[in-house]
């Protein structure tokens, strides 16, 4: 069965087709949600909520070939919304997901990672989302535009502004570290 068939079957209410449709995508969506939210539990919650929204509203998708862009849009919006509000989460008993170990020849030192992590936390959720879509998921600005439902020029400028904001956040972090060193 081709993917378009699965979309159409899911639109007819076939839950098994819907799950089959998501099976090859779930890891990538989870990883994307994690890159935006920087939190495993948060990524699980956001993805759960987003996928129920996708199922519930699937019949409103007119063009099945747009499923992937629409799916990413719902997931990213859910992540941005979750990041924008405080959520209470129920603790879940779960297995820890596989973590990709850092390559021995990684470009990043431990200090770099901490610095980038802190820098990302200073960014607005939609800026974190656009960086994750580009640098993790590998989407080009025109694809990001389709996912977020914005013009390509706007996607390009938002990505540029997110890079600038990241640089400013890292500079601020570096200045803070220098100031701490002086006061120590």
């Amino acid at each position, binding site marked *: 069965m081709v993917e378009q068939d699965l979309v*159409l079957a899911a639109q007819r209410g076939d839950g098994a087709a819907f799950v089959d449709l998501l099976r090859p995508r779930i890891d990538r969506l989870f990883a994307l949600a994690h890159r935006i939210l920087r939190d495993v539990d948060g990524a699980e919650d956001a993805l759960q909520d987003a996928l129920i929204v996708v199922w519930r509203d699937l019949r409103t998708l007119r063009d099945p070939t747009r499923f992937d862009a629409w799916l990413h849009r719902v997931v990213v919006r859910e992540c941005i919304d979750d990041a924008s509000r405080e959520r209470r989460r129920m603790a879940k008993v779960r297995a820890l997901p596989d*973590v990709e170990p850092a390559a021995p020849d990684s470009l990043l030192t431990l200090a770099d990672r901490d610095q980038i992590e802190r820098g990302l936390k200073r960014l607005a959720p939609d800026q974190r989302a656009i960086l994750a879509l580009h640098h993790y998921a590998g989407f080009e600005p025109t694809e990001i535009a389709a996912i977020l439902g914005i013009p390509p020029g706007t996607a390009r400028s938002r990505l540029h502004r997110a890079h600038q904001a990241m640089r400013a956040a890292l500079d601020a972090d570096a200045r803070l570290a220098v100031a701490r060193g002086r006061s120590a």
Partner: protein
Amino acid sequence: MIQERDIGRLLDAFYAEGPRQAPDWLLDDLQARVNTQAQRADWRVSLRSRYQPTWRLLLIAVMLGAVIIVGAALLQIGGRPRPRAGPEFPAPPCLLSDSCASGELTAGQHESTAFGTFGGKRHTLTFTVPDGWANVYDTDIEYMLRPRLDSQGNPLHVLTSPVIVDQQEPCTKTPKAGVGESPDDLVAYIASHPGLEVGTPQRISINGMSGQYIDVLGMKPDWTGTCTRYTDGQTVVLLMQREPGPFLWWMDSTEQTRFVFLDAGEGLTIGVVIDARIQELFQRLVDDQMRVVQTMSIAK
């Protein structure tokens, strides 16, 4: 200090690390939830969804504006509104909002909330299920039951006024001219369809409703019909509904399906569709779901 030109490269490396595998329970949980979560019909305006296309928001704004203007004009002309006679039957509580689906059902008898509006009257569907079933869809023209714990998720569809579709690319919803709407007409059309391998039609009588059922067991290898709007391969497009709605039933070569058509009186035909995407499951599905079908009745 990290330079601007390096930020992209560092983010690439940073994002390459971290979890890449979703926990297994996510898909299991999703499977359980879709079995009991109704979908919205495509023609409904969903005001609760945060994902609204711009055209829909504009349409809602225009409609709201029109309602306000007309309402204000009526108040000016007529003063206090006069009391009006109530409708002939109580309106379903959720025709224009979320589906009336009940979700998980206890073992025993249940009835539809919205399903069965026909000819200005309500024809409530009543049925009995064992434990483990859910109602996932309930509108005026379509009702859907699903075995709650069935991991294959094969639903049982019940619909009003099924009619045969004219299969012409690009698969528009057009009723086929010259084909009647009675159970005998519908079964005779399917039985003689040049693209379908079918079983022998059987007469059936359920709680005062008489009709026929027929099993579609596959597709003939030389059938070249397609429906490229929905699928790439061999396709037979069979059913739509007389009333406007999203329902369009097409089959591909992987499916086996039982169609049950019942005369509910007053010109109302009820269609029941039992569909197996995994052919090995067909007989078990038919056996399980026909036990529920046999309990169905239409209250007028």
